[in-house]
């Protein structure tokens, strides 16, 4: 359904009699709102319901729109941008299929609590509910995968709704917010009085400051611990609290682990860092989790991939302190002794202050004993692999080579989902926050290229590597075209083992080697494919050529390079905790199978 004649006439009449206040249509108000929110980039795809918005974007210069090739990638790119910068990522899609294509991206951002605003076009208000062309119930479809969503039925509500959307997206536990804008709302003109400076909502007031009494209790417990452990997640990065975390860990001298989402919060190269924990965590990280007597959980949510079987986890007694901004994350899977609801940065700052004031020192003797135990676990070197193999490229070797080559440099690493993701997490060794960008919660294959693209846009002077596999990369490979159009040169490192590796690994271990549909038959020639997209493609088949290829790719600073590494198809990710097992029941290598 198109805009009615009457609406056209009333708009024309309004234009004919200008008043003192500025008249803007909904689309222009939307653009003003984004400008007021200091939005620099919008990733999107046009369509019927958003044409007025695209028209308004055409008439301005401060916001750059990036035309993706599929709406899923628009949301992923904006999400990657948000993960790297901490700003709200913005995506724009049309109604119906535009929105349904965006759903995977929205759910991905939701699971990892990424601040985003997704603007979706909608059919005109009069057509809603009539099964109009390209209509879908956007608010209904996205309800379970957003922090909040809005359908704007009146253009007079648009500015305040956008203000709320940005506020909700970035405050408290961040998350994606969808704003559904019917076509007539973007078309209708009203006198515009400006973008609201602030917005108050009686039903939404996230807590920042932690409860002082609880923090004091926690500190007492923590300082008296014999086998303390600090376990931190994505919340530390979202709260920009890695400086505070480092200070706290260093003051205490306690061992520390990061989840997949939290890597980089504490430097991987520090001895106090025990590596990532969880399903593919190190022995020392997992054993410490199981055997500690006081656990400080910071912005982490005791995910099933992190603690394994909760019954097994509960077999050892330990006191748990949990800092999280979202009360519903506390005591969800694991009962917590001292909950502290608040912003991680605020709470850690307060903790550091208390230690300084009190001057209390941890029990040095107990701590030394605990470290000795940990070093015993660490000496097992659970990430060892066949490093000197001259015949076939070990996927871990590619990551280690990249890591050595880029140490201390301005580098971002994105990944897709699967074995390559775990190897990147295990072997790269992230020392800085917001440098490791991947889909942890939803585990979305296909995020790697769009993430890299979004980050490169925000950080044009940084190098952005996308570690992927030949399975994942094909889920959003069309975005290589976007990379060319917007000159976002990224380096795609595809660990091509000709298998859906993680699926194959599970089938080998849990399904007696019945490799049901995990072999990627009829793979394209990736080198030619990269060239067809206007980029550089490299094929690397021998371990000796890995370093050279990476060097060559890095030399081509302003080109997107796709390296097709032919890696060992039989390599598995170890250590591994099988589904349903406890986190210390690890398989350490193929000899354990």
């Amino acid at each position, binding site marked *: 359904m198109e805009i009615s004649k009457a609406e056209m006439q009333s708009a024309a009449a309004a234009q004919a009699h200008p008043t003192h206040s500025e008249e803007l249509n909904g689309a222009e108000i939307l653009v003003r709102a984004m400008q007021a929110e200091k939005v620099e980039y919008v990733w999107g795809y046009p369509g019927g319901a958003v044409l007025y918005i695209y028209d308004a974007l055409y008439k301005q210069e401060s916001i750059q729109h990036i035309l993706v090739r599929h709406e899923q990638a628009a949301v992923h790119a904006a999400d990657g941008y948000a993960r790297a910068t901490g700003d709200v990522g913005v995506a724009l899609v049309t109604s119906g299929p535009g929105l349904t294509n965006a759903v995977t991206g929205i759910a991905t951002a939701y699971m990892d609590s990424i601040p985003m605003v997704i603007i979706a076009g909608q059919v005109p208000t009069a057509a809603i509910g009539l099964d109009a062309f390209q209509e879908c119930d956007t*608010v*209904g479809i996205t*309800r*379970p995968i957003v*922090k*909040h969503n809005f*359908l704007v039925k009146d253009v007079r509500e648009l500015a305040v709704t956008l203000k709320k959307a940005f506020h*909700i997206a970035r405050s408290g536990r961040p998350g994606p917010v969808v704003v559904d804008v019917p076509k007539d709302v973007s078309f209708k003109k009203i006198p515009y009085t400006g973008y609201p400076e602030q917005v108050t*909502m*009686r*039903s*939404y007031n996230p807590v920042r400051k932690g409860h002082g009494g609880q923090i004091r209790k926690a500190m007492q417990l923590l300082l008296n611990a014999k086998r303390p452990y600090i376990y931190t997640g994505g919340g530390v990065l979202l709260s920009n609290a890695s400086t505070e975390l480092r200070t706290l860990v260093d003051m205490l001298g306690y061992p520390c682990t990061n989840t997949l989402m939290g890597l980089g919060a504490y430097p991987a190269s520090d001895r106090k860092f025990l590596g990532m924990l969880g399903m593919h965590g190190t022995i020392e990280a997992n054993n410490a989790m199981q055997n500690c007597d006081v656990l400080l959980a910071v912005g982490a949510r005791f995910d099933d991939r992190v603690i394994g079987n909760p019954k097994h986890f509960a077999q050892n007694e330990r006191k748990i302190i949990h800092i999280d901004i*979202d*009360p*519903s994350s*506390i*005591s*969800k899977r694991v*009962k917590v002794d001292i909950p502290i609801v608040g912003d991680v940065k605020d709470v850690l700052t307060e903790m550091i202050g208390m230690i300084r004031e009190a001057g209390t020192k941890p029990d040095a003797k107990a701590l030394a004993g605990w470290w000795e135990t940990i070093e015993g676990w660490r000496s097992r070197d659970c990430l060892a692999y066949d490093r000197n193999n001259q015949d076939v490229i070990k996927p871990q070797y590619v990551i280690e080579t990249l890591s050595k080559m880029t140490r201390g440099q301005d580098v971002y690493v994105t990944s897709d989902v699967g074995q390559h993701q775990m190897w990147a997490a295990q072997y790269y060794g992230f020392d800085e926050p917001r440098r490791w960008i991947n889909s942890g919660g939803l585990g979305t294959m296909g995020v790697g290229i769009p993430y890299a693209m979004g980050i490169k846009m925000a950080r044009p002077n940084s190098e952005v590597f996308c570690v992927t596999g030949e399975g994942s990369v094909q889920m959003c490979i069309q975005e290589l075209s976007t990379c060319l159009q917007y000159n976002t040169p990224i380096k795609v490192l595809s660990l091509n083992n000709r298998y859906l590796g993680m699926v194959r690994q599970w089938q080998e271990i849990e399904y007696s080697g019945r490799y049901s549909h995990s072999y990627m038959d009829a793979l394209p020639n990736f080198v030619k494919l990269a060239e067809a997209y206007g980029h550089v493609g490299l094929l690397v088949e021998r371990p000796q050529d890995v370093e050279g290829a990476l060097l060559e790719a890095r030399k081509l600073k302003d080109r997107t390079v796709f390296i097709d590494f032919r890696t060992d198809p039989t390599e598995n990710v170890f250590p591994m905790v099988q589904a349903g097992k406890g986190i210390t029941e690890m398989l350490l290598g193929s000899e354990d199978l």
Partner: protein
Amino acid sequence: MKHIISVLLENEPGALSRVVGLFSARGYNIESLSVAPTEDASLSRMTIQTTGSDDVIEQITKHLNRLIEVVKVVDLTEGAYTERELMLVKVRAVGKEREEMKRMADIFRGRIIDVTEKSFTIELTGDLSKNDAFLVAIDRSAILETVRTGACGIGRGERILRV
């Protein structure tokens, strides 16, 4: 264990579906749910009757609070409260049954609000167990139709839920 949770939420389109969606998405039970605007037309008050362990109820209240449009949440069953449900029952009432049905309605302090040659419609209010008891007390085969609002609860005395 049975819990009655009262929720004050913004009286906005879609707010109800967020609450219901939360329960279905996270696998929580809803035994009954009643909702209507309050004296302040911008607010709705919802009473949810649910069952679950203490841990589950704690998660339910936390997740309800997490919804942007939810203003306040109280588990009424944590303190003194009172609950009422309205039930309308249409029963067969022919011959001797008419007197018997009238008597049963009186015992349960119900009112007959519609009468035909063959049926009565009885209005009952009470807590859920009283209304259950009535349905058990009368001849089951006489029940033609029942409709219940679900529990509607309020704290006793000084326990007040408002913005």
